[in-house]
């Protein structure tokens, strides 16, 4: 089975990024139809205004075209991979806007040599993530919702929730660790790590 014949981890649609990686310009339209609304909606909500979101979405798609050859359907569903690229660009932009020192560039691509963690047909990471999110403690859900979806910094989330900054960081890290453990990768780190 070739990459383009294989279904994604979502299990329903054939990935389009390998076609883009091969220079198939017709696939651009398909990719935009498939992920345009997602990326636009995510960016608008994360950044909070349409002007910044428009700039960010252009950057995200330019990144997708340029990195399409790095996509590995065994590592993540195509939609999840698109989200990973989108989140990187949005976080970069958010930090630039905040006029803080920009994060040191550490671009670690998913490593194809690791091979599949499981048969893509046998699992649905998003379903697991939804279930795991629902099982988190309410305060962890609140922090993750603000940080992941609304683009809040730890400090902004702490102010919003009227919680100490260290507590917010701990909720975010432990919540993400719990999600990670539900994805069958590793157990969450032991309790006790703080801010």
């Amino acid at each position, binding site marked *: 089975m070739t990459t383009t014949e294989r279904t994604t981890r979502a299990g329903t649609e054939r990935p389009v990024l390998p076609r883009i990686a091969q220079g198939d310009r017709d696939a651009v339209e398909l990719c935009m139809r498939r992920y345009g609304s997602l990326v636009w909606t995510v960016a608008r909500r994360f950044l909070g205004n349409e002007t910044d979101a428009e700039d960010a979405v252009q950057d995200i798609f330019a990144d997708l075209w340029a990195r399409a050859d790095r996509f590995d359907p065994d590592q993540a569903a195509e939609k*999840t991979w698109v989200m990973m690229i989108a989140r990187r660009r949005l976080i970069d932009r958010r930090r630039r806007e905040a006029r803080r020192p920009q994060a040191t560039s550490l671009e670690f691509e998913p490593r194809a040599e690791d091979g599949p963690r499981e048969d893509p047909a046998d699992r649905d990471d998003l379903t697991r993530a939804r279930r795991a999110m629902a099982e988190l403690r309410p305060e962890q859900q609140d922090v993750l919702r603000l940080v992941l979806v609304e683009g809040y910094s730890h400090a902004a989330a702490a102010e919003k929730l009227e919680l100490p900054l260290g507590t917010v960081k701990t909720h975010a890290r432990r919540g993400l660790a719990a999600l990670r453990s539900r994805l069958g*990768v590793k157990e969450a780190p032991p309790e006790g*790590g703080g801010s």
Partner: protein
Amino acid sequence: MSTGDRDMAERLWELAADRAMVGLSDDEGLELQRLEVEGFEEALDEAELAAALGHESLIDETELQPMPAALAGRIRLAAPFAMPAPRGAGSREADDRGWWPWLVAAAAVLALIGSIAFREEERPTPRAPSLEARLASLEREAADLVRAEWRTVRDGYPAVSGRAVFSPGRQDGFMVLEGLPRNDPGRSQYQLWIVDPARDREPVDGGVFDVDREGRVVVPIRAKLRVVDPRAFVITSEQPGGVVVSEGPHLVLAAR
């Protein structure tokens, strides 16, 4: 694993998680680079994957909005410059390079008139169900639906009617409003507050919204935090973008 190794592994996860969720400062980035611990790259990959999946899990697909047609046009125009050359392009690729300056110039001009040149109907984008359809679906299907009628509470303010509906189980809801005056988004925006004593003394920010026409409007509720047991919904008028804590006054109220 020694205590030192365990501490390093915990610190690695903290930095990997922060990087995937909010990004790192310069100092934190340097600290991460200096960590010499087993599983370094795996932790970064796993944190990014978990953050992306966590983010996906919190998105309501029915709320996805199509990107503006002009923006889509600009992205299409720029795509050939960012993506690899088509396979088998060979010498034609070299020939094409001479056209790059012209193509770039053309792209810039077309981008300016993108809203005219690229109309949504020419490049159909799947549309989310209408707000009315989503409202009807929620009211029909949500067993835990909370419902309250709007009434004006500020003296002298126009009479507002309609209802607020919210499903704590789905974390989804809508406002149906009739009579709320149009606002100028450049000067002020309406903001919804959800009173939920089960979770906090302070009301939950239900999101800002605009009213751009007379008559009945349906507005989705976008609670910034999880709502447990909403007792009342309050609308205020705030500065564009909304506020973290409202000083009022309350304009309209829907209470159970």
